[in-house]
Each structure stands twice: as C-alpha cells, then as structure tokens.
C-alpha cells in the first residue's frame, strides 16, 4: 500500500530504555536538591463544609517548619478556569469534597511536616452534600457553586448542571417508527481513576522572582502557564522541566500540588518537594466521570438501525467542567445513521473534580450504546459483527456529530475480527463471547520541534511533549526515516519550557501525529539547508542537487560528477560553510484522523461466586501507520486492560457521609497479572490522509471497546445482562439470582 519505509514499522529499543531498566531514570519524586524542604497538605475529612476558622499558628511555630500556607497566601485569579484550578488546589472558604486541600506546610523533614499538619486547628460547619449524579441533578439538591448553571440546562434540573449539549441529525421519532424492534435501557458506570503508578510529585524552587519547577506532568507548558497565572508571575519567569512521567492517562493534564509547592517555596525561600501518598491520589486528584445514561435504539428485523437516541448524565466533581459533549459526540460515531440524537448533561457534585482519562467521556457512552446493540442482536437472533458491519460508518458517512468521515478503518477492523479464528472458536459452559466497537477523535494542536545537527552529523531533536508511552522512540524513527539515516543517530529529548517554543499537552493521542509532522518538517528544513551548502561547495546551482538516503547527490550527470556528501561530511564542514545546521518547526497541525477499534473477548462467569474470568482477548485497531508496532500493540493492550478493570472491578465508593471508602490499591483494585490472559492484537493500517506517513493517534481508542465487550460477554456467559459497571462478583451474583 503505497510508500515503502526503511525504519517505520521496525521495533528498535527506545532511547530512554537503559535509564528505565537500570533504575537511573528520574521520575517526579526522584530529584533531591541541597537545602530542600518537604511539603505536606492538610485535607478535608468532610464532603462539604464551611471553614469557620483555620488556625495555623501552632504549626508555623513548630521547630523545623519553614512555611505554612492557606488560601490567604494566594492573590485572586482573574481567569475563571485558573481560579477554579487554584480553588481546587487550595479550598477558599468551603471544602467541597473529601480530600480537598485547605492548608499546606513546608518543613525540614517529612516527619516534621506531618507533625505540623496535626497542629493546624480547623473548625468546620458541615453542609449538605451530594455525590450521585442523578441526585445532584434533582431540583433542591445541594448546590456546589451558585450561578454556574448552563444556560441551556432547562428549568427541571438543579443548578449543578453546568453543561448541556445535543448532537445529531434527522428525525428520531420518524426513525423509531420504522423499526421492527425498539429497545431502551438505562445504565450506570462508576468513576474510575487513571491509576498511574507514580503518585503526583514536584519540586519547586524560587530564586528571587524566578522559579524552577520539576514535575511529573503530561504538559509542562500547561503547568507553566497555569502556575504563572496563579502565582502572579510572567510565564518566562517560571521554567518547568518535565520529569520522567510514571503514567498519566489524562490524569496529569492539570495541576494539584504544583501551585502549592511554588507558593511554599516562595514563602520559605527554599526548594520544596511535594509527593502525594496513594490515598491523596485517590481522594484529591481527578478520577474520570461517573455516569447515568439512557440509550434507545430502533432496529429492523434484519439488523439495520433506524434511529438512535442517548441521554448521558455525567458527574464531574466539585467544579464546572465540559466533558459530556465528547460522550454525546462519540456515542454513535461508529454508525451510519439517518436519525440520531445524543444529549448530555455535565453535573457538579461533592467529589474531586474530574480530569481526563483516556478518551475522556467516550467509554461509558459507547458502552451503553454497544450494550443495547448487543441485546438487540440477541433478541433478533443476529450476529453482532454482521449487524455492526451492516451499520458501520465508512468514508463519506455523515457522522453522528456532524463531520463527514474521510478514509476510516472501522469496516476493516470489523472484517478482520470476523475473519479472526477467535471469533469462531468454540465456547464451553458458563462462557460467553462479547464484541464492541470503539472510537476516538484524536487531536492535533500546537507543537514546537528543534532539530540540531551535531558536528559529527548525528541529530539532537528537542521536542516539548512528555513521553508517556515511547514517543521518543517513534519521533526518532520518523526523523531517521525522513533524513534517511540510522535510528541510532537520532537522539530525541524533551526540552524544558525555556528550551523551545510552546507545545500543547501530551493528550488526545496527538503526540506521534503532531510531533511527527513537526519533526518531518524540521528534517525537510535540514535537508534543504544541506542541499544549499553542498551546491555552494560544488559550485553548482541549488536545484542541481538532491537529498537521497542521508546524503546530497548531484541530480544527474549534467549537474556534475561529484561523489555524494553524507550528512556527517556536510556537518563536519558546517563551520566553514555558514555555521551550524539545524531545522525547526512551530505550528499547529490539524487533520489528526479519527481512530476506530473492535474488541472480542471471551469470559467465563462462575455461577457460584459471580466471578468473571477473562479467557481470551483480541483487539483490532486502525493505527493509520504503525510507526513502532510494539508500542502500538502496547497502547492497545494497556487500554484494553484498563477497560477490563473499569468493567469488572474499579469504582469510587462513597458512603452516605460523602467520604471515599476505598482510597488505596487494596480496595480500589486495578487488574493484576494473574487476572489476565495475553491480549492479542491486530493492527489495521488505513492511512490517515492528513499525515505524510499516514499516522493516526492510537493511545485512547483501546480503552473504549472493553466495557461493552465484557458486558456483552458476561450477558451471554451468565444468561443475564447487567446495566451497571463495574460488574463485580456480588453484582453479577445478585443479577443471576434475580434473573
């Protein structure tokens, strides 16, 4: 299919690998500097309370304590989004959820810092709270923030509704009238945490009116600009360095500790390190939204969808947010529908403010849609993949959220799934097979890349996107491919915010796509400069030379009889031919190209215990062009397993008191190695026309299909269908008992 590549599609070891397998890589909590203090945060034990009084004097007087801060230590922030972020990092007047920060200390040791927290006296007046999305929408529910209600929310919901969206086309009532069967179901999904293994951590160091910040983040430019605004600094005064990041999955696309650490450092005049405990991570960073949803689908007897309607209510915690739109836009994106509508409500509650989690908003919406589709297939005795193929979106389909699709890989994934031996393998008793499609938009956005040729002709590539899954490898490969040099001759590093221009955050599955385009353009600039230099050296016209496989050649015998000059030879002469050779690119590439996937899973449900075992799992996904297939597979496998956890185990459990009851890995159980089989993968490559190499983002789509695929498999294995996630053993047992 088209272009032949030399390096793309191979699987070289990642450039940052040795550090990571020898324990040398420095993550957020791994940096220590001379004179460093340790910060600690006092957090609310209440779901909702007014801070009547807050007395830090005894803490401040404790020997070894160098700074204590509260909301009073921050100036008011004009920008509404950044003001909310500050108020999430440090409560102002009220605590809004269990775990909400209200004071922080910096001390000479962790133990002194903890002792100081115990000396802070707080008087609370508890206020009514609400943690459930449906309860929070009811008129009369405790309102988290007055005056934030969305203009289109309507009169029949509470002021906690901060977003209302609807998407779609056609006339759904007319569509439902054409159906032979109409099925409507209601679903609930629990909030899940990204579950990155590295707790949030940073080290802030003020020097006069400037500061350095070392931080585990997906976006150090984002951190810089939010923190600078909150601290009243200019962005150029704050240099942020992205540590190696121990997982993010969207969870590290905002700030929690960083403004606090900076404020403590400014007050103490010393570097301050802050590291969250796992309990703090669960209680006070952003999990994803929980949801309550209704989905109605009409189908003809032969499996054609005549109309589809979804109503999505997302719970996103204690501050305004806008996420349900992505659920509403993605819910029916996989299908070519004449009559479709998806509505969504964003709702505030007394929970930590949500933050993105891998394809934010899509997994739950698509779970509900794919579960109703599956139940229709059961009722109409139709093959689930046949029905999806019959209705699948394709190039030219007007999507349920508006745009007409370019070339997409959904049908290719469905056909590959149909043809795969997994789909026709025999099943035993208490076993069931489920399938689901999945979708994610993928984004482009702002990017900066600087490519410097060293005097020996090797390449230093500096980019601005923290590497959360091997992107330094894929970016180095694209540089090597474009230049026609070996992979080993490219060294890619993530620059600090002072090194190169702005880059958007590592999110939206955008890095390989966006940094890739920037890298290719920087490499083209390098090649053009090399050609110019060599033409001068050879004293021939600039258009009489060309770049082939890492060297400048004369375009033909007419141009002159010169032996090719390699990049190394050109670089060695750079000092005499005009100085250093470099290329760079700053821009905002769009055309990221949407991504589809299809998963097949076999489960076995134990009728005695309700325990679900994953027997076999196969993931199919359109990667456009897989630059480093091992890491593409890794994204598919990792996403699938996060989805398995969400489907079967993971949930935020709140008591009547609004306090989180399972803030640790023992009680919030993410999948472990013994829970799982191998995760088989099939990479489909339908090139994205918007990228020179055909790249599509691959990071997020894979978390979308598992929820419904497993739910559908459990329904067929257990003989009863559950309409809530997670499908923990007691819930499955209860459903089987009632079924």
């Amino acid at each position, binding site marked *: 299919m088209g272009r032949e590549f030399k390096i793309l599609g191979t699987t070289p070891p990642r450039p940052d690998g040795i550090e990571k397998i020898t324990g040398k890589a420095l993550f957020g909590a791994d940096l220590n500097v001379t004179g460093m203090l340790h910060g600690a945060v006092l957090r609310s034990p209440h779901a909702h309370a007014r801070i009547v009084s807050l007395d830090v004097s005894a803490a401040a007087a404790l020997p070894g304590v160098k700074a204590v801060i509260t909301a009073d230590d921050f100036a008011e922030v004009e920008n509404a989004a950044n003001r909310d972020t500050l108020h999430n990092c440090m409560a102002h007047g009220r605590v809004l959820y269990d775990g909400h920060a209200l004071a922080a200390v910096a001390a000479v040791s962790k133990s002194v810092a903890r002792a100081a927290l115990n000396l802070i006296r707080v008087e609370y007046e508890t206020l009514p709270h609400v943690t459930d999305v449906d309860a929070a929408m009811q008129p009369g529910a405790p309102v988290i923030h007055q005056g934030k209600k969305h*203009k*289109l929310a309507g009169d029949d919901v509470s002021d906690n509704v901060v977003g*209302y*969206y*609807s*998407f*779609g*086309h056609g006339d759904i009532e007319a569509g439902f009238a054409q159906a032979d069967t109409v099925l409507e179901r209601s679903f609930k999904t629990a909030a899940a945490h*990204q579950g990155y293994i590295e707790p949030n951590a940073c080290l802030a160091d003020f020097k006069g009116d400037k500061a350095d910040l070392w931080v585990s983040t997906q976006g150090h430019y984002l951190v810089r600009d939010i923190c600078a605004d909150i601290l009243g600094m200019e962005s150029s005064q704050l240099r942020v360095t992205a540590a190696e990041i121990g997982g993010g*999955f*969207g*969870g590290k*696309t905002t700030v929690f500790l960083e403004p606090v650490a900076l404020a403590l450092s400014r007050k103490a005049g010393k570097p301050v390190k802050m590291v969250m405990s796992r309990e703090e991570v669960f209680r006070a960073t952003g999990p994803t939204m929980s949801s309550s949803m209704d989905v109605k689908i009409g189908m003809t007897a032969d499996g054609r969808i005549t109309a589809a309607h979804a109503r999505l209510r997302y719970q996103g915690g204690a501050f305004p947010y*806008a996420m349900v*739109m*992505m659920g509403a*836009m993605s819910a029916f994106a996989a299908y070519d529908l004449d009559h479709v*509508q998806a*509505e969504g409500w964003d709702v505030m509650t007394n929970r930590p403010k949500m933050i*993105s*989690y*891998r*394809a*934010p908003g899509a997994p739950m919406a698509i779970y509900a849609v794919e579960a109703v589709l599956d139940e229709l297939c059961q009722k109409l005795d139709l093959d689930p993949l046949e029905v999806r193929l019959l209705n699948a979106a394709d190039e030219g389909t007007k999507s349920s*959220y*508006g*745009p*007409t*699709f*370019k070339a997409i890989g959904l049908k290719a994934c469905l056909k590959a799934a149909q043809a795969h031996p997994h789909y026709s393998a025999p099943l035993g008793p208490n076993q069931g097979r489920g399938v689901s499609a999945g979708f*994610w*938009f*993928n*984004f*482009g*956005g702002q990017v900066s890349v600087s490519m410097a040729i060293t005097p020996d002709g090797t390449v230093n590539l500096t980019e601005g996107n923290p590497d959360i899954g091997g992107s330094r490898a894929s970016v180095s490969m694209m540089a090597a491919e474009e230049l026609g040099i070996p992979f080993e001759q490219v060294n890619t590093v993530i620059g600090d915010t002072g090194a190169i221009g702005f880059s958007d955050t590592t*999110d*939206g*599955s*955008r890095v390989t796509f966006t940094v890739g385009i920037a890298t290719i353009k920087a490499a083209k600039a390098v090649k053009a400069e090399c050609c110019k230099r060599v033409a001068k050296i050879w004293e021939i016209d600039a258009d009489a030379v060309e770049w082939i496989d890492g060297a400048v050649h004369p375009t033909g015998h007419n141009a002159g009889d010169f032996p090719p000059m390699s990049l190394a030879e050109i670089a060695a002469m750079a000092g005499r031919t005009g100085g250093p050779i470099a290329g760079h690119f700053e821009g*905002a590439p*769009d*055309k*990221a190209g949407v991504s589809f996937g299809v998963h097949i899973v076999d489960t076995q449900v134990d009728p005695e215990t309700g325990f679900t075992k994953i027997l076999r799992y196969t993931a199919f996904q359109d990667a456009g062009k897989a630059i480093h297939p091992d890491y593409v597979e890794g994204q598919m496998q990792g996403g699938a397993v996060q989805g398995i956890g969400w489907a079967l185990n993971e949930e935020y459990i709140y008591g009547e008191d609004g306090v989180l009851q399972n803030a640790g890995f023992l009680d919030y159980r993410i999948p472990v190695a013994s829970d799982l089989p191998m995760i088989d993968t099939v990479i489909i490559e339908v090139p994205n026309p*918007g990228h020179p190499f055909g790249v599509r983002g691959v*990071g*997020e789509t894979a978390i979308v299909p598992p929820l419904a695929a497993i739910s559908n498999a459990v329904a067929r294995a257990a003989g009863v269908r559950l309409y809530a996630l997670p499908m923990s053993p007691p819930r499955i047992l209860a459903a089987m008992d009632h079924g």
Partner: protein
Amino acid sequence: MADVTIWGSLRRYTDGAETVEVAASTSRELLEALVAAYPGLADQVAAGVSLSIDGEVYKDAWFTPINPDSEVILMPLMVGG
C-alpha cells in the same frame, strides 16, 4: 457564503435552524459572522469551538480557508486524555 451546521442544543439560538448561511472565506470570518448574525452563540464561541471543514477538525485555526461548497460543522472545543 458558506453553510454552517450548528449542533442540536445551539439551534435554540438560530431559530431552530440546523444549517445557517454566513459570508466568510476563513474560519475567523466565519465565527465573527456567526456571532454577528446569532448573538446567542457568542458565549459558546468564547468558551471554545472547533470547526470541521470538509471532514477535518480545526481548533483555533483562524486563517483556514473556507470555500463556498465546503462542509462546515461547528463543534465544541475538545480535550483528550
């Protein structure tokens, strides 16, 4: 002139119209013309929108050309994980 498709909940501000016609040759002109013709859209445009132009989604790209026969869809500004 370009036809712009407005998402469902915003059609309250376009007298219920799913598609509206505005005079524009770039993204910026299009957004300005939309808000001028339908002031109710101003809040959402300020809060952030993307434009899908002929099947490609553009975020904050003011100077993207729009042809008279382009398919233009107004979309909210999205984020990823």
